[in-house]
């Protein structure tokens, strides 16, 4: 139902299963395609495996069985990378520069100032210093933290720390941006503000974003498409398009159209969770 699913998905997962050593089945027959430039949300209750799916896409975790394919643009230099079936332990991970990950917590290094935190991915890739400075400044400006380059994480508010985390994710100019409930721990006012900023960034940069959330309202506001997951084991329950045009602003947030989408998605989520136990 993803529409233009075939062709050149940025990443595509086919009947992916993930069973942890503890016996917990996090994902079972999970199929998921993401198209280039798309903003797609994975929506589901806590523990439905959506974070697990995101970690598999990031290459931080491997599927127990099934296949994960990254397209060349979001994969290591040269060629299409597939693999990750049950028999092959050699899971070729996607390239560091092409995929970025934003965690639920800002996950900044407390001993390093904002600029040093944002610089980290480039430093680890041994990019030369001249290029780094420019890239770091650009990333900081994008999230509105240019003035706070020398501040330490503890000196910033929760929202600003998350901005720094997003700047770090953007500094490599990734093809695919993975976000794991990045705003869940923030207060509503800050969250709305960051949602707005996130959307303008996305419109400006046009990167592919996979956004994990348990908030119906957040997912409807942000996404072009929402994949609703069932809990335990995680599976795709519904794939709902949100065709409202961008830019979406405060006006959209209070519109009847928005409320209508929210109702549809809420209903799907209720059905999805009714099936499994919580």
């Amino acid at each position, binding site marked *: 139902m993803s529409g233009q699913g075939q062709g050149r998905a940025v990443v595509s997962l086919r009947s992916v299963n993930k069973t942890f050593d503890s016996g917990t089945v996090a994902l079972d027959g999970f199929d998921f395609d993401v198209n280039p430039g798309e903003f797609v949300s994975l929506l589901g209750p806590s523990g439905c495996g959506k974070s697990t799916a995101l970690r598999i896409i990031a290459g931080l975790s491997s599927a127990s069985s099934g296949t994960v394919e990254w397209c060349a643009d979001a994969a290591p230099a040269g060629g299409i990378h597939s693999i990750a079936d049950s028999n092959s332990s050699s899971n070729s991970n996607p390239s560091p520069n092409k995929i970025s*990950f934003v*965690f639920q917590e800002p996950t900044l290094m407390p001993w390093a100032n904002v600029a040093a935190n944002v610089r*980290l991915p480039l430093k680890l890739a041994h990019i030369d210093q001249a290029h780094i400075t420019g890239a770091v400044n650009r990333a900081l400006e994008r999230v509105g933290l240019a003035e706070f380059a020398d501040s330490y994480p503890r000196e910033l508010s929760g929202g600003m720390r998350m901005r720094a985390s997003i700047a770090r994710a953007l500094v490599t100019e990734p093809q695919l941006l993975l976000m794991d409930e990045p705003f869940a721990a923030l207060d509503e006012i800050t969250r709305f503000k960051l949602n707005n900023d996130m959307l303008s960034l996305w419109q400006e940069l046009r990167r592919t974003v996979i956004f994990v959330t348990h908030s119906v309202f957040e997912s409807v506001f942000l996404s072009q498409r929402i994949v609703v997951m069932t809990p335990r084991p995680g599976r795709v329950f519904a794939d709902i398009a949100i065709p409202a045009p961008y830019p979406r602003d405060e006006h959209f947030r209070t519109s009847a159209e928005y409320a209508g989408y929210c109702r549809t998605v809420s209903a799907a989520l209720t059905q999805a969770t009714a099936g499994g136990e919580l």
Partner: protein
Amino acid sequence: MKARVLRIGLPLLVLALVLVAWDLAVRGFAIPAYVLPGPGLVLATLVADAELLWQSLLVTLAITVQGFLLAAVGGIALAIAFNQWRLIEYSFYPYAVILQVTPIVAVAPLLLIYLPQPMAVLACAWIVAFFPVLANTTLGLNSVDHNLIALFDLYKASRWQVLWNLKLPAALPQILAGLRIAGGLSLIGAVVAEIAAGSAGAGSGLAYRIAESGYRLNIPRMFAALLLLSAAGVVIFFLLSGLSHLALRRWHESAIRQER
């Protein structure tokens, strides 16, 4: 501000009261100096024997500092080795623990048999000081934020990049805490070994002075030497605390003063 005055003033007041009570008791009960010297006499001895005691202090301090540095380098290096190579950890950790739990007083005489005295004293200082550095550093290296490790993973950091850019800075507060403990302990280790060496050795450390003065019933000098030893311990503690504060003041909770 008021709290600060109290924090400095109150201990000084207690000290003054204790000294006055001590002095009054010695005078009032006419206690002879070979049983309990008054504070005035201790101070006078400190001045009179200054040269002798100062030499001894330098000897003990030299051993302490060497023991501390060896413990710091060895403890951190071994903790890194444990962290990087599981097999090394499995092979050696039990013995590090055994080394630690065996009372140093019991080990010192043995060491004195096999090693020349200064070396034995140094070995004692090292053994005692080494374990807290190892244990704290190990704890620090193992308690890095999992998401940060995932992040380094995502960006394909090499294991040395992870060690240098993530694990060591993350472990810094624990390493410094270990060093602070080690500073005090290496002094204790040196003292224990000197006492164990006793009159048998040619040592002239402060602890040896204490033992020697004890045999000669020179109680005022015992007190004076003891005073110097604890002063040395306090100085070591403050130096290491200062170092810790300097290193952590920008980012670690332990070094940040909250305004209320």
